[in-house]
């Protein structure tokens, strides 16, 4: 049987920018940052929520050949920029406080904290176009 979700992956436009965004702005911790020369300098980069060591977010650059041809890579990058990727949902104990703190650090919010039937939530994006929810559930 499946036991546990350990990693989830998001495509990013630029891994250096993404690392700075996810750690310095969102406050996630760096888990792994390994570049493998024999695999065309593939960079395995993962971050996670402090205090939740068993789930990591892998920040993947969109690869070109031989993984994807250039057209495919360009299509994925365009879809990402259009907001067509999936999203990650985070929880917080204080969504309004977190909103103020993240906004202060320059995070681009798509929705201010809003009362919902399930609590209060807010929405934001990274520079690549990935979508995130931040919820304080009731």
């Amino acid at each position, binding site marked *: 049987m499946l036991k546990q979700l350990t990693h989830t992956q998001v495509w990013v*436009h630029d891994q250096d*920018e993404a690392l700075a965004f996810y750690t310095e702005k969102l406050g996630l911790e760096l888990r792994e940052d390994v570049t493998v020369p024999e695999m065309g300098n593939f960079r395995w980069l993962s971050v996670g929520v402090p205090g939740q060591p068993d789930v990591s977010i892998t920040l993947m650059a969109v690869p070109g050949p031989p993984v994807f041809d250039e057209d495919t890579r360009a299509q994925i990058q365009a879809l990402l920029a259009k*907001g067509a990727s999936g999203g990650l949902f985070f929880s917080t104990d204080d969504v309004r406080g977190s909103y103020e703190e993240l906004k202060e650090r320059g995070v681009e919010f*798509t929705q201010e904290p809003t009362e*919902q*039937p399930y609590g209060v939530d807010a929405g934001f994006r990274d*520079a690549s*176009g990935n979508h995130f*929810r931040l919820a304080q559930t009731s």
Partner: protein
Amino acid sequence: MASATPVHPVRHLLRAKDLVDARYREALDVATLARAAHLSPAHFSREFRQAFGEPPHQYLLTRRLERAAALLRSTDRSVADICLLVGLHSVGSFTTSFGKTYGMTPTAYRAAHAPAIARARVPTCVLQAYARQPSSTFGEDTRGQAS
């Protein structure tokens, strides 16, 4: 660091689309949306349509109608109130656009739909994304204005 980062050009169009979703209640116009995307209004409308399959003013109208439909389902506010709450100013053209999109008057729509939240705890962002109806031909479109 962020300012020096290369961003995909379409990402700026997504910022304008996000602005519609966040501020549909306000008197948004194409010029405001174009500014969010760092493009001239004419260029912006063309690029937006190419990226998302419909012009920005149409996206805005269908977003407003979707929000109106949600308010009809989940509140007991009057149709005129709801029209204003979603950023539209003419109850007559609201009712017409709503009828073309949903196939019934706002009042009939309200009577026909129980709130979605009674069935599942679906995040509002998901409801908004899926509940927006494709557009038909709206009278409002002909002006080429977003509001």
